[in-house]
């Protein structure tokens, strides 16, 4: 537990993490102001005509369509979680602080597990908190300009499930990045490798071999995020199977990184 809290404090001290949180908070504030100003003086009927209008509270998440205002932030949270995770793990190698920590806790697997767990917990909590703040920033637009009509228990439940699910995906992105950065011992590798894989390799596979699309990270993550089968994929997988696929991919990468961390020397300038 000590190690876990220590690792969390270390992660929160990373400048990149703080900057990313600050950017997200500014974004939330900006979204709230825009939502409030943009829909002033409009009738409820007019507001309802705009698809996904945040001043209409039921648009925050439409369970039947698996979309809503919340969808806007999902991608950014995933990216933010990934970048923060890569930075937290990569910077330890660049600064050499990993050596210092290992002279206090030499059991590498234990340390690695504590770091991944702390990263996952932090990413989940921060993602959850940011989504709550984002939604809270839209409340003035709903209260003063819009409507909360149609909001009931099932709406709140669906909303909570979506927020929690997005937070889990953010946590997965963070530990994926931490694992890649640990295996390669730097931040840049994790970011570039992920970018190259998602954009270049998966782009090529999607074009040349569309039948494999359902196995790709992009489709898998999108399916889990929206929790609905994709129409665009030839052989689309359901959300549960996609979640299992995602977990399997993660397990392989986490396992590989753990073995690499356990076996390789912690050499100078590594």
């Amino acid at each position, binding site marked *: 537990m000590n190690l876990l809290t220590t690792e969390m404090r270390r992660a929160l001290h990373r400048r990149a993490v703080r900057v990313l949180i600050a950017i997200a908070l500014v974004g939330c504030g900006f979204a709230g102001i825009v939502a409030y100003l943009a829909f002033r003086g409009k009738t409820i009927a007019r507001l309802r005509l705009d698809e996904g209008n945040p001043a209409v509270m039921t648009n925050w998440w439409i369970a039947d369509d698996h979309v809503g205002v919340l969808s806007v932030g999902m991608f950014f949270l995933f990216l933010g979680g990934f970048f923060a995770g890569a930075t937290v793990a990569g910077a330890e190698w660049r600064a050499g602080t990993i*050596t210092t920590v290992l*002279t206090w806790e*030499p059991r590498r697997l234990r340390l690695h597990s504590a770091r991944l767990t702390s990263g996952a917990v932090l990413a989940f909590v921060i993602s959850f908190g940011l989504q709550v703040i984002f939604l809270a920033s839209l409340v003035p637009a709903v209260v003063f300009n819009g409507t909360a009509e149609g909001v009931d228990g099932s709406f709140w439940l669906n909303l909570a499930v979506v927020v929690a699910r997005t937070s889990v995906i953010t946590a997965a992105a963070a530990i994926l990045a931490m694992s890649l950065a640990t295996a390669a011992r730097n931040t840049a590798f994790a970011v570039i490798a992920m970018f190259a894989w998602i954009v270049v390799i998966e782009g090529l596979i999607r074009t040349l071999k569309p039948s494999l699309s359902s196995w790709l990270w992009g489709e898998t993550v999108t399916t889990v995020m929206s929790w609905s089968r994709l129409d665009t994929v030839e052989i689309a997988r359901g959300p549960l199977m996609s979640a299992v696929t995602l977990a399997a991919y993660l397990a392989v990468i986490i396992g590989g990184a753990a073995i690499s961390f356990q076996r390789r020397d912690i050499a100078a300038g590594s």
Partner: protein
Amino acid sequence: MSPVAVDGLDLTVPEGGVFGFLGPNGSGKTTTIRCVLGLALPTKGVIRLFGESVAEGLREAVQRTGAIVETPALFPTMTARENLRLLAAVDRIGPGRVDEVLAIVGLADRAGDLVKHYSLGMKQRLGLAAALLKDPDLLMLDEPANGLDPAGMREVRQLLRQLADDGRTVFVSSHVLAEIESTCDRVAVLAKGRLVTHGRVLAAAGQWVTELRPDRFSLEDVFLELTSTADVSEAQLEQVVA
């Protein structure tokens, strides 16, 4: 095939006192320390700390060991006190001990400053403070005087002596002979990854005499004779070792 960093090193460090680990740059000092601390895994051989095999009881051994490996790496955006408290939390060491070690290394007045504003010498002292946090039985210090000015070097020397006089074992690696000569009770000399010689350093009649080579009157003489030879051949080294 990767080069051999340390080869056939057979060395016992006695309990108590300051043990100097000498060698030119690239001789394998840091690699040896890394192996002892479990940061690097030797391809073969056995390392024992406090009589127990490191491979089996590393955690217990490390708990009794304070270490600086190369440059002390701490969080630049935290204060010295925050850095030490963060490390202390791993072993549930109280904040009182943090202030104590900051005072020992002479950083009590600057404990609230961010580490990024520290000079190299101050970072070195902070590293030493971190190594002392656990109140260790053994201190393994890799080039602890790096970046220190003459006054700082003297303070560190005095501190190491004091720690040894308190019953701790201090293992110091360095290529600065004056530092080793005036601080250490025993030394080992490493060259090209191999132990060239080891023995006591004695102060006698105002001169430093070593039992390594009694015909030489300073550690520098011995050191230079044994290692100066950047172009020393394997055959020559074999001869020295023999």
